[in-house]
């Protein structure tokens, strides 16, 4: 391990190796702590360059870097980004790989520098055994808030990470999350780091270039009218919907009724298709993407000017993470959330529906492994299977599930109150996540509710920069045209002799 470095030294290295002038807030602090041999927790907003931290550390810390990350699409995006940096071999291990692939990755670990894996994969005995044979330089736990049953995305698999960390004995451990309340940070520290002394960096959630807007609507048609008004402007736009079907339907509507170049994006699409959409959006060949939350932070689109929540998410945490994808270039951006009583009721009902009666939980645990007890939807059996895999007993599971259910209900309620409040929205977000930080005082670039100020007035007042996109309706490229662009070649169709 190297000596702790001074900030000027780190900046010098950053300029030399990465061609950046300065660190994002938090990066240097966390790097320094880890270089000094401390474990660290970083609460950093989306797009603050988390992957730079492990890229920076790669030549400084010997051994394998293990990065635990829950979503497969994120894993792939991050791995690709590191591949581009050519800092060492990158490998991915998750349940979607076939056996040959998994075996290949495990057999080549000694040549690997960065290993991305899903928390459930890290629990497999064979994986732990192989990792224990190596020295682990850095264990990074991404989306670390999943460890906390006080967080909205609690994953039982994460609870095992503390014990696994103990077995792997990494030189340093880094827990990262974009959204964490104090309570969640406390859980991360306790469960993952066993309350060992830890460096904590907590960035403010306050993003001054984002304008926050709540838009009250009566129903579909009302929503559509306002959407149409917004979509008249040439702003790169991301719209979040809550289901895949909604994303597809809304994209179709936008394609039929506007001149926007639109695509839908969700986890059900082929990998090649998703990569293609990202590329088109990045190069401003698409100006609107309608997506589920699968449209993740791995997507490096800087100039999203308009971000819309077609339906409210279930809590502050998801909301904050999603609006964080707007205006990453630091230019002003408008984030707008449709607020609708029915959407709220639907969410409440969905939560109730997913509630598991303790009888069913007990049945599940009493049943033999292979059997699927009736009364459970697939998603629920999966959750219970995760608990069983993590060796929880039935009473603990019942209690934990009751608690998470209550936490989720409270979080939804709090968020609904926020959406309906008439106070400064930014101030409330800051209060929820970091009460120490006092936000900038409200002004006309801060926030508004549709009950106070019309949407037209907001659009006029913000005067967001536009991005020119060719609006000629997209036409199919011919083979010869494509060949000349791809390869500067012509196509000779007569030479083939089949």
């Amino acid at each position, binding site marked *: 391990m190297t000596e702790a470095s001074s900030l000027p030294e780190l900046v010098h290295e950053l300029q030399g190796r990465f061609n950046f002038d300065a660190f994002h807030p938090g990066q240097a602090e966390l790097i320094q702590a880890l270089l000094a041999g401390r474990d660290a927790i970083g609460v950093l907003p989306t797009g603050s360059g988390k992957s730079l931290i492990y890229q920076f550390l790669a030549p400084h810390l010997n051994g394998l870097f293990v990065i635990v990350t829950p979503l497969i699409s994120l894993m792939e995006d991050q791995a690709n980004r590191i591949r581009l940096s050519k800092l060492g071999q990158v490998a991915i291990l998750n349940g979607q790989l076939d056996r040959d*692939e998994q075996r290949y990755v495990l057999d080549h670990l000694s040549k690997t520098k960065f290993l991305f894996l899903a928390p459930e994969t890290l629990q497999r005995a064979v994986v732990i055994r192989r990792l224990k044979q190596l020295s682990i330089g850095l264990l990074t736990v991404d989306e670390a808030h999943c460890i906390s049953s006080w967080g909205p995305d609690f994953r039982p698999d994460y609870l095992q990470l503390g014990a696994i960390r103990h077995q792997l004995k990494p030189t340093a451990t880094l827990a990262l999350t974009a959204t964490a309340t104090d309570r969640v940070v406390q859980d991360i520290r306790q469960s993952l780091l066993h309350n060992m002394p830890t460096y904590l960096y907590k960035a403010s959630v306050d993003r001054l270039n984002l304008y926050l807007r709540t838009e009250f609507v009566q129903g579909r048609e009302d929503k559509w009218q306002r959407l149409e008004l917004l979509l008249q402007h040439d702003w790169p736009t991301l719209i979040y919907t809550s289901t895949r079907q909604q994303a*597809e339907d809304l994209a179709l509507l936008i394609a039929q009724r506007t001149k926007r170049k639109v695509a839908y994006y969700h986890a*059900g699409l082929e990998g090649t298709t998703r990569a293609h959409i990202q*590329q088109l959006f990045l190069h401003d060949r698409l100006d609107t993407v309608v997506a589920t939350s699968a449209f993740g932070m791995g997507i490096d689109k800087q100039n999203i000017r308009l971000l819309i929540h077609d339906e409210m998410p279930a809590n502050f945490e998801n909301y904050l993470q999603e609006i964080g994808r707007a205006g990453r270039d630091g230019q002003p951006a408008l984030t707008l959330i449709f607020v609708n009583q029915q959407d709220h009721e639907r969410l409440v009902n969905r939560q109730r529906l997913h509630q598991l009666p303790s009888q069913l939980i007990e049945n599940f645990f009493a049943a033999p492994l292979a059997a699927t007890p009736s009364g459970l939807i697939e998603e629920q059996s999966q959750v219970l299977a995760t608990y069983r895999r993590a060796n929880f007993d039935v009473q603990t599971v019942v209690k934990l599930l009751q608690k998470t259910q209550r936490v989720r209900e409270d979080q939804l309620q709090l968020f609904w109150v926020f959406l309906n409040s008439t106070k400064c929205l930014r101030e409330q977000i800051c209060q929820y996540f970091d009460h120490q930080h006092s936000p900038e005082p409200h002004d006309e670039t801060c926030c508004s509710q549709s009950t106070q100020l019309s949407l037209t007035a907001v659009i006029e007042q913000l005067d967001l920069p536009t991005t020119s996109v060719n609006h000629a309706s997209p036409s*199919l*490229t011919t083979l010869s045209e*494509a060949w000349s*662009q791809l390869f500067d070649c012509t196509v000779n*169709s007569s030479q083939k002799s089949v």
Partner: protein
Amino acid sequence: MQPNLLLPFFSADWRRVKAIYYVLAGKRTISNLSAGLTYGLLPYFRLFPKLSQADYDQAVQILIKQNQLVLRSDEGPQMARLTTAGIVAATQLTQQDHWVKSVDYWQLGDWQTQWQRLILSVQVISNYRHQVTRYLPAINQPKGQREIHRWFYQIGAAQQQIFIDELGAAIAQQSLLSQQILVNSLSSESFFGMSDFQIIQALRLTSGEFEFARIEAISALVRCELAPTAPQVLRQLFQVTDQRLSRPAQRTYQLVSQGKSWSQICALSRVKEGTLREHVLEAAILEPGFDFDRPLLQELAGTDPQGYFGQRLIQIQAMRMREVKS
């Protein structure tokens, strides 16, 4: 799943509803494979590896409601067949440009893998020719990426040019619909193509039809590029590396082919005899040159307590004869 697109997988004869699902989803068991063989659906094996049972069941229910499919309501596994209206619709569908005429999992490999190879190889060569070295690869599967990179470093500049010329020529031979889908799905830093959604709009297809049309496009192209007359650089790119048989079945079949006796085979393998018999059946269904006249098979048929093995073998042989004739 768009329900009507499932019609051609059924017929005027009764077929097991679940078996069709398992064939399409690519679940490899003797029972599914022999159903695939019997129904002539083996080429469609693993056509939709991500299709969920629930989506499939829902589509079947809709076809029943539309009177295109009827269920047999007696005991045993659920059977279904096409009604007259269903037969008409299925026939019409198979004549469409987007119907999957060219697929064959066993000959052409997994279409998704082939699709990824096409997209990534074009991206890599196009970017290389424009001196672009930093870009996100169009596919994420590490094995697929490694394959293409190895292939790329093996072929020299001359072969690159052959790749470009011959691939262009092969695409030019495809149907207009296939050409449009193949060409516009490609992308690199110098050509962007279109998103699937834009292609669907431009071609006025449903997303289900598009999915079929894409599978047809890549299958027909790969069929071309695997022909013995195709240049080596393309045959290499699209070569089918997967074994027809599952690994354990492959092992058993090897022993059979080596002329080992049954007791030798049992001694050399650590699995139950019943499983070994299943391996032989798998080979009988899938191996092109399977020799049904091997003395070992007669011996096995004779010793099988319920005669199940011998009966299955005779059925499989009959089906394969029929397959060869057609």
